[in-house]
């Protein structure tokens, strides 16, 4: 591996991220499956880094899932997006930050399409007016939330309590980074590091003391693919893609997978359970899986947040071996207690993969 | 005194070598066995890749050699080396002496009937590339009767151990595509297919011709070698090939099948070649001294080779070699 070659690519694919004052929109999937992630993101950026993040309570889905499942036409998706932009305008912001990679892809696609076909933009402007009586302004900057963490990764590193290092051996943790396809595969110039060697998560891992695992199927999709997953009979196809990735990363014995997309951590996490049930195979040590976390969860962990406050009990793959490697104290009894000590109920114990 | 250089063969290589030798101050003598100069290229209508008229090129060559002593309908029957060079006896009874000999004897076209499974000489509508070229010149061939479906078979007699020729004949791929386009021009309604093993578009503009073949002429290239031809009840040709990219055997009915015959060594020169001590290479063509710096030189002093007598070549290759051989001969004569 010629690291200079990658560095050259990373240098070529850089983008401007404003320093402050962001309009934040949430992710449908992430707030459902990893609610701790977005909370942590806002807490870190607002309270630890002192940035201004505004959330408009009227914002909705971007329509991406319906769009990629071929259930709504592009004009509809664009009108939904135009409404989001209108909310941003009304709120007095011009730096748009979204939590979801699918959304990021849709926003980028929409802005690029409007750039190429101004008549389409005019048409959408009309649609938005007709439907909501709103007017939008295009954001000055569009960023994905991971871009913000990437931008401030060294500031986070300064406040770091538990670096990505195995406290027992003193060696850096081996971390797999998995980028959501729509982050930069459609528009390589819109992502840090481009499409082939995205730097957005690599930068975080390196800044926080981990070691990146560069395995052959690194570029491969997690297998979500919208349509593939939504139809039960097709899920084997989705699962097979994840399986291919795990087979490929297995020899590297990664300690952790870090992701920046809503679907990826979900599938990389849950399919480990399904694969274990179907084939009896697990990819971590001693019958455990490999934890697949979001970048906010990892940022929270290294900054010393309580794992259960981060919502790590929402992961199927047990997180405890990782916490022990990093030397993070945790109270096993509190794992299935929600906010205010509410009992969340325990998952039914899977037969092949260890959940505790 | 000017030096005689005996050039055997009056095709493209022979004519061009003679032209250049004359310019260098030597006296070339061309001995041609047929009744006209020009060789195979004179039978060609258009040249690849840009559809130049072969006639334009050949007539310029004729102009260049009009002052050069030429024997037509003449063969060398005997040649001996002597102190001054060579002494050649001609079939017309004359004899000439020369300082050096240039073998520019060219090629024979593969006899298509040897690939029996293609049915040349058996089925009415199987023709050779040369016959098609003649059709383009004369527009007369009773076998070509407004065909609706035309097939071209590549590598007939080339890359085939079954006929003893393992080499690639180099020009047939490009010729097939050129002829396919021309057929489309003559019969715009016809569907034209070529059956190839590899398309070897090695020269400048050839890949463009390939693109043009697909884009402008809608010629369909199928990767598979035709292996059997038969006739149906109506006398149309039924061919069998495998569409190897699709992975299925393919059958197709055609109205005309053109066999892209390969080049083979011209065997009528064998006796003279033996007398001069020139061996054949593993492909059965004449052996030159070496592949790089002795391309036009033979292992025998004073004997030079040019053009397709050493390997299949395109016209530009041949002309280049003819010019190169002229320099070789000039240096040889002057340094002696």
């Amino acid at each position, binding site marked *: 591996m010629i690291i200079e070659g990658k560095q050259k690519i990373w240098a070529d694919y850089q983008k401007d991220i404003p320093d402050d004052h962001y309009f934040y929109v949430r992710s449908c999937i992430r707030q459902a499956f990893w609610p701790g992630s977005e909370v942590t993101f806002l807490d870190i950026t607002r309270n630890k880094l002192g940035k201004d993040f505004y959330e408009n309570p009227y914002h909705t889905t971007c329509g991406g899932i319906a769009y990629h499942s071929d259930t709504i036409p592009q004009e509809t998706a664009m009108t939904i997006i135009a409404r989001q932009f209108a909310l941003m305008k009304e709120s007095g912001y011009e730096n748009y930050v979204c939590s979801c990679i699918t959304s990021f892809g849709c926003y980028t696609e929409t802005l690029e399409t409007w750039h190429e076909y101004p008549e389409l933009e005019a048409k959408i402007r009309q649609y938005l007016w007709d439907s909501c009586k709103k007017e939008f302004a295009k954001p000055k900057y569009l960023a994905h939330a991971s871009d913000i963490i990437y931008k401030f990764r060294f500031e986070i590193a300064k406040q770091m309590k538990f670096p990505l290092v195995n406290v027992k051996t003193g060696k850096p943790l081996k971390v797999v980074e998995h980028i959501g396809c729509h982050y930069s595969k459609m528009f390589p110039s819109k992502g840090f590091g481009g499409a082939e060697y995205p730097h957005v998560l690599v930068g975080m891992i390196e800044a926080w003391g981990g070691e990146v695992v560069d395995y052959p199927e690194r570029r491969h999709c997690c297998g979500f693919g919208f349509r593939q997953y939504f139809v039960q009979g097709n899920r084997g196809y989705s699962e097979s893609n994840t399986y291919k990735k795990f087979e490929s990363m297995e020899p590297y014995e990664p300690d952790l997978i870090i992701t920046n997309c809503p679907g990826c951590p979900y599938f990389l996490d849950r399919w480990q359970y399904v694969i274990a049930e179907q084939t009896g195979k697990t990819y971590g040590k001693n019958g455990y899986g490999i934890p697949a976390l979001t970048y906010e969860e990892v940022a929270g962990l290294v900054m010393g947040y309580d794992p259960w406050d981060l919502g790590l009990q929402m992961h199927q793959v047990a997180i405890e071996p990782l916490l022990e490697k990093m030397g993070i104290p945790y109270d096993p009894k509190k794992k299935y207690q929600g906010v205010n000590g509410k009992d969340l109920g325990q998952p039914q114990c899977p037969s092949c993969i260890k959940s505790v | 005194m000017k030096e005689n250089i005996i050039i055997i063969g009056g095709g493209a290589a022979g004519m061009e070598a003679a032209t250049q030798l004359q310019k260098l101050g030597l006296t070339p003598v061309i001995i041609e066995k047929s009744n006209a100069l020009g060789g195979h290229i004179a039978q060609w209508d258009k040249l690849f890749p840009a559809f130049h008229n072969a006639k334009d090129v050949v007539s310029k060559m004729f102009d260049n050699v009009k002052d050069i002593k030429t024997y037509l309908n003449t063969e060398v029957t005997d040649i001996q080396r002597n102190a001054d060079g060579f002494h050649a006896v001609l079939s017309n009874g004359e004899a000439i002496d020369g300082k050096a000999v240039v073998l520019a004897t060219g090629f024979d076209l593969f006899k298509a009937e040897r690939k*029996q*499974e293609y049915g040349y000489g058996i089925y009415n509508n199987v023709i050779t590339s040369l016959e098609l070229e003649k059709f383009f010149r004369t527009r007369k061939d009773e076998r070509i009767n407004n065909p609706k479906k035309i097939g071209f078979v590549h590598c007939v007699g080339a890359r085939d151990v079954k*006929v003893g020729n393992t080499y690639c004949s180099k020009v047939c791929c490009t010729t097939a595509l050129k002829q396919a386009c021309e057929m489309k021009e003559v019969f715009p309604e016809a569907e034209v297919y070529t059956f190839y093993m590899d398309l070897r578009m090695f020269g400048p503009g050839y890949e463009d011709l390939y693109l043009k073949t697909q884009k402008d002429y809608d010629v369909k290239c199928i990767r598979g070698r035709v292996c059997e031809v038969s*006739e149906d009840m109506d006398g149309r040709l039924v061919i069998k090939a495998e569409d190897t990219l699709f992975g299925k055997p393919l059958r197709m009915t055609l109205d005309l099948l053109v066999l892209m015959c390969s080049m083979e060594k011209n065997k009528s020169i064998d006796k003279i070649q033996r007398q001069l001590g020139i061996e054949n290479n593993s492909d059965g063509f004449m052996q030159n001294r070496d592949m790089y710096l002795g391309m036009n030189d033979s292992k025998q002093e004073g004997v030079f080779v040019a053009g397709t007598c050493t390997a299949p070549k395109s016209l530009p290759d041949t002309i280049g070699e003819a010019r190169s051989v002229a320099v070789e001969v000039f240096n040889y004569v002057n340094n002696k």
Partner: protein
Amino acid sequence: MNNNIFHPFVLPFVLGMAFVLTYCVVGLIRVIWQLPKEDRKQFLISLVTPKTIWANIRDLFGDCLFHVKIWKRNPLLGYMHSSIAFGWFMIIVIGHVMLFTLKPLEGVEVEGFARSFTNFYYPIFYKHFATETPVFAFLMDFFLLMIISGILIAVVKKIYSKIVGVKRVTKFGFADNMVRFALWTIFPFRLIAEKSNIMAFWWLYSIDLMIFMCMLPFTRYMHIPTEALFILLRHAGLKAREPRKGFALAQLYSCPSCGLCIDACPMSVNDQKSGNTSAYFMKILRNGDTAEAQRIAETCLMCGKCVLVCPVSIESCDIKFSQRAAVPYEIHSDHSYLDVISTEAERSGDPSGARAFTFGEKISTKPKTLYFAGCMTQLTPKIMRSMKQIMETAGENYDFLDKDGGVCCGRPMILSGKPAEAQAMIAKNTELIKQSGATKLVLSCPICYKVFKEEYHLEGIEILHHTQYIDELVKTGKLKVGKGEVNYVYHDPCELGRAFGVYDEPREVIENVGNLVKAKSEKVESICCGGSLGSFRLTQQERDEITQNSVDDLMFNKPDEIVTACPLCLKTFSKKSPVAVKDIAEVVVENLQANN
């Protein structure tokens, strides 16, 4: 001379004789034991069937003693063999006759067991023990000298084999050479011993006999006793089933490694490849090197020439087949897809897309003559076209069985040692042929012809190769041909000529259309074209050498064209021939008379 009836020098001989007899008896029991039950029964019955008894006697004398086949090939070589074999036989016979006529032994009374023991060696050394009458003395000396004359030829042959018309001889190891040396010296020693009565020579003579007999089972000379058994088994009509058991074993030991097949084998054109010939195959298989035997079995072209030139009539091709079959295949053929093929009548209304063969498409009535071109002929459309023209010109009521591609005849599968797996194809073709209602089946491929003749049960249907068919059409006047000026040479395809002796019909046809010139080797001796499907191992280069040799042989009398009657020969020769190569049907079409 000496009234003693015993002398220690007889002991080596007695020892050797006892050993070889024991070995032969054990071997005989083993071979018969290994025969499959039905073969054994067939063999025993043949021993009492008058017809086979006569054949057995004829061949035991003709082959084992007089070597008639070798005489036919080369009289000198024949004399060499028969002088030794017959001479020796006569010496033994006369010796025993003498033993009875001279009794009682002079001055000694020997009875019972001692008598028979004496009988055992007495005639071998009689001159030491007794005097004989002049008649016997003359006879014994005559045959002894006869043997020695044969040995003299053998010695000369060893030095210069061409004297007996043999180019290449088998190369032997130490044991073979040693026994040969023993054989060569036995009779000179005997002669010297008899004439001089020097004790040392009696000893040498006896020891020589012992060496000869003790080493006999381990050398090619084992063929001397085995051949007698082989003749009996052969006349019982057995076929080799397993490569190293029973009948095949008898054949392995009957091979004298004489090497006549080396010169005959088309592969010997390249000296380095003469190790692939039957003589070596038999030797290698006899020695138990099955891997190498398998290699040779798979290399062989199966042209059958070695079988026909073999002085012992060893069916080496059968043994090679059994060797091929002895190596188990991982893959078993599955030709069940042939079920979808049917004739049109059966298929009408069948939407399954099954392939149909149509009969009587061209003519309203059912065809009388069915033409089966076969796979190879599909690749030589000239033959098909010529056959069509011939049949139309002759006004035949015919149709094609495989105009649009047919089912393989099954012969190649049999050639590869998988006879059972050919059955599906044979059954399908049989079904299609029977459904056609034809009474005559014409084949233009000898490969097909062989299997149709041998393996198919087509009762009531005449099976003809197209050479025979055309000959018949010409002879009955249905086809009128004119005689041209072209000089043709005819190549006998292996599976037509050697396999069925169809030598004359094609030649008669050719003589009707042009001049027939002779090849250097004709008929039985014709050389395989090199294209045979029989071989799995020959490389292109090796095949090319064979083809070139065969072409050179055909070109011996400078014909204008080569004519053959096999599509495979046609294709193979076309590559190397300096003149046009044509099928017989093509030549006939070229010479059809206008008034047909």
